[in-house]
């Protein structure tokens, strides 16, 4: 098996290096991209093919206690797709919540090579890592949930920001986390009383701190620790008509700081209820366009079945009452919550169709592709399997018009979409699905094809139908090995678990012991995850630049 590959004659899209369809060879050796291949190399003839860096998914839900609960909850989902066993490949099932091996293979077929699990509760992170260990083909990292952590709320109440910083660092170090995630900050703590928060300045029971304070403190901590990725925020009031105000306020509260707003489509709603429901994508895009510190992933809605899985307990309960669909809830001691409700997005439902339009407006109105990333908040907005369909919608205005003819008629007068003729170029697609997310994540070796990059490469056949083009990669190279040929996985490989290299803090352990005993139900000694539990891992440097 050659450890060197020369990809010849393909049209290279490498936005980090400004390459926009340039015909050039890409050389791979020992798992890295190199300037030149000396000596023997396996040749991939990429004439008429398009070369992109491997896809980077900045926000998805593929492994965690909540994701696995969703899998267990939905045997009916699994009958929609089955992957039989093949030599060297494991069997699996599942459409909106696929089983682990199938998840890896499906992502690989699409040309993705790095995915970020967007939410894991600290006490359940051992589970998340073990589940991720069974997702092949992709490198992965996890964002730790912190926005409703009762120790943090307590430190915040006493104004001890240093302690918060040390505690967050300890969590990231012990649990091998990559990023800092906030979900409905303050609201999920209120859910422990059956309530939620309605605005940034509402006080949380007992701790008397506000979402604004939580947001600002943890954003400060994120930057103090010099984490590779900015703070990652699922804002308050997700899904609620009129929530755009809270979203704008959230961004304003963090002006000037690096911030990533997750699945922003779900936070861009006007109106007072689901009848007067309107789009505020323009207001959102105007703010984002004017504030270069903000990155977003869209959370695009895809018509069909979805499974909503979030840490946003109160929102999930609301959705259960709206839909009367089955409802799973798990409140997690000291830390957070979670909720799961199956959902189906319908073209002929005004709200769903407008949600769909809002996502596209967001993509089309935000000018800088380096700050808006493709996601469906899988599987909340729809399965990642439909990323190619979204790409087609972005690149083909005519296809958008056809879709607009199918959806609920009322949407036409409530969206700017019919008037947005912008079409994404392949170069821009490469940014929103690879180069941009990699840069926002601070992953220097991903999302580009320059020398030194990990040899994660996706090769597609150009096609008029962009959905067809991106559905099945012709070749995928992962760490220098050819793992997909003609849209089929031919080799299973193990991906790395990427985490932020935050220094340990043994003194804090001693200080925390008492609190653990009082409020948790596990021994602090059993909380950290040893590095040996992640057989293939990579630590990404942290620390503020000199």
């Amino acid at each position: 098996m050659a450890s060197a590959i020369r990809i010849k004659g393909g049209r290279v899209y490498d936005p980090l290096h400004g390459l926009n369809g340039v015909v050039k060879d890409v050389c791979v050796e020992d798992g890295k991209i190199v300037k030149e291949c000396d000596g023997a190399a396996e040749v991939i003839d990429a004439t008429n093919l398009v070369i992109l860096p491997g896809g980077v998914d900045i926000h998805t839900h593929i492994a965690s206690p909540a994701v696995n609960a969703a899998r267990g909850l939905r045997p009916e989902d699994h009958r929609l797709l089955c992957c039989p066993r093949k030599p060297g490949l494991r069997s699996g099932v599942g459409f909106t919540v696929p089983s682990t091996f199938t998840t890896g293979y499906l992502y690989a077929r699409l040309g993705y090579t790095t995915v970020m699990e967007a939410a894991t509760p600290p006490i359940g992170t051992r589970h998340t890592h073990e589940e991720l260990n069974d997702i092949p083909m992709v490198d992965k990292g996890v964002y730790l949930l912190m926005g409703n952590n009762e120790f943090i709320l307590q430190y915040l109440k006493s104004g001890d920001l240093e302690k918060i910083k040390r505690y967050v660092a300890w969590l990231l170090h012990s649990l091998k986390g990559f990023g800092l995630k906030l979900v409905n900050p303050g609201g999920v703590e209120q859910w422990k009383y059956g309530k939620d928060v309605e605005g940034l300045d509402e006080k949380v029971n007992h701790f008397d701190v506000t979402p604004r304070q939580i947001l600002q403190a943890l954003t400060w901590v994120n930057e103090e620790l010099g984490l590779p990725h900015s703070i990652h925020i699922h804002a308050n009031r997700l899904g609620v008509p009129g929530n755009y105000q809270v979203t704008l306020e959230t961004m304003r509260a963090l002006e000037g700081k690096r911030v990533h707003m997750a699945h922003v489509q779900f936070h861009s709603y006007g109106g007072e209820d689901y009848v007067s429901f309107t789009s505020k994508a323009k207001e959102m895009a105007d703010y984002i366009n004017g504030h270069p510190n903000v990155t977003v992933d869209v959370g695009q809605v895809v018509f069909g079945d979805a499974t909503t899985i979030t840490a946003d307990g109160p929102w999930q309960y609301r959705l259960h009452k709206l839909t009367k669909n089955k409802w799973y809830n798990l409140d997690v001691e000291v830390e957070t919550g979670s909720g799961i409700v199956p959902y189906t997005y319908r073209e002929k439902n005004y709200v769903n169709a407008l949600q769909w339009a809002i996502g596209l407006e967001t993509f089309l109105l935000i000018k800088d592709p380096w700050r808006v990333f493709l996601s469906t908040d899988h599987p909340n907005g729809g399965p990642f399997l439909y990323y190619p369909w979204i790409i087609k919608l972005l690149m083909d205005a005519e296809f958008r018009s056809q879709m607009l003819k199918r959806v609920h008629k009322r949407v036409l007068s409530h969206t700017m979409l019919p008037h947005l003729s912008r079409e994404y170029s392949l170069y821009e697609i490469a940014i929103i699905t690879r180069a941009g997310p990699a840069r926002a994540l601070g992953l220097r070796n991903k999302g580009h094809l320059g020398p030194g990059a990990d040899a994660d490469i996706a090769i597609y056949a150009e096609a008029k139908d962009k959905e067809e083009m991106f559905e099945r990669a012709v070749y995928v190279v992962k760490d220098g090995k050819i793992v997909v040929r003609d849209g089929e996985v031919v080799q299973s490989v193990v991906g790395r678990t990427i985490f932020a290299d935050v220094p340990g803090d043994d003194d804090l352990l001693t200080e925390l012991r008492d609190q653990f005993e009082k409020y948790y139900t596990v021994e602090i000694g059993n909380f950290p995850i040893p590095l040996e539990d992640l057989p293939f891992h990579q630590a990404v440097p942290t620390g503020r630049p000199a």
Partner: protein
Amino acid sequence: MTVAKEMRVVKDVTCPFCGVTCDDLEVHVEDGKIREVKNACVLGKDTFLHHLEGLATPRIDGKPASIEACIEAAADILARAKYPLIYGLDSTELHAHRKAIELADLIGANIDHTSSVCHAPSLQAVQTVGIPSCTVGEVKNRADLVIFWGANPAEAHPRHPTRYSVTVKGMFTPQGRKDRTVIHVDVRRTPTSRMADTCIQIKPHSDYEIFSTLTALVNGHDLDVSEVGGVPLQEWRDLVELMKGAKFGILYWGMGLTMTRGKYLNVVALLRLCQELNRFTKFLGAPLRGHGNVVGMAQVLTWQTGFPFAVNMSRGYPRFNPGEFSVADLLGRGEVDAALIIAADAIGNFPAKAAQHLKSIPLIAVDPKESETTKVAQVVIPAAQAAVAAEGVAYRMDHIPLPLKKVVDSPYPSDREILERIIARVLAKRPDDGAKRAAPRPRR
């Protein structure tokens, strides 16, 4: 002359015996033998103190054999089987679970575990309506109303009341027991009754009617009957007021619901009641899971195959159908033609007819100890006992994973290693030759 004895104290040890999964045990080991166990309940203590008793020995057809030979014989049986069963897996850990499922995938087996005859109906109920639940620390910190229904934690989960649900002090329950009202609902008095403020004794098989009644009362309907389940309607009205008035209520249930008439429907009715109560207050429900690491097996099986129990791989991909692929039915109908029973005593726990069938087919038993199953198996492979002599990961009843330590040595390999070696030998006999076609089921 006295020889210095090697004495070790191992702290933060996780107990594997029941779903409480205490991780605060302190085990004292002297010269490779466990001498003392601190912090455990009697069940946990005995698990560790008796670690050298009743150990299984490797044998084929009753005659002593090497581990190597036993593994070969096991691989032989499994490679040739047309409709094999892999079962058990409650008393082992995550890495072994992975390997068992890998083996099932490889040979197109049925794979099931002890949840199937325990809380599987609860899992089916959750699949039907969902569940409003929480981790045990939430109960410790907040619960002011705790109801045990059809369960006997005093005997099955002894430290649950002291660590999580009854006497323990938490963030908003600083007085512990005094901050809580405890109710016990069951068909008979048990040691759990002694820890309750109120005991409600109901008629057997009446749980479904009672939960339906409570839900109706919660929703403001009244009933034109004087009693339900042998209990006066007013008592049920009082219970509903108590539940609605709680700040944080939790309803724990056990086998009294899953094993009686109605099975998963009893739990569906319970879960709908808990969900409805959330219109008034914080009200949650949770099953008192496990013997051993049943939850862990369900977790790994779910993430690797999509389904939590009763999985069939004979078409080359996972299929799920309780009643068709669940172990009691597969054995009751005499369908499997070979079985690997690992980390559970199947024969000791099954209805007689199912046990009879197991005895009539090629049977491999992997277990640290002798059991009803090892007594009759063709191949017996002793394993290092997970959590005692083999490390790994196990899950608590509320789905939280905890590390297992290797406290003492064992001359035998771990479950994980045994399965790895069986897989290697099966592959040698049956090189991966493509997707397995549907195998005909043996007909009697």
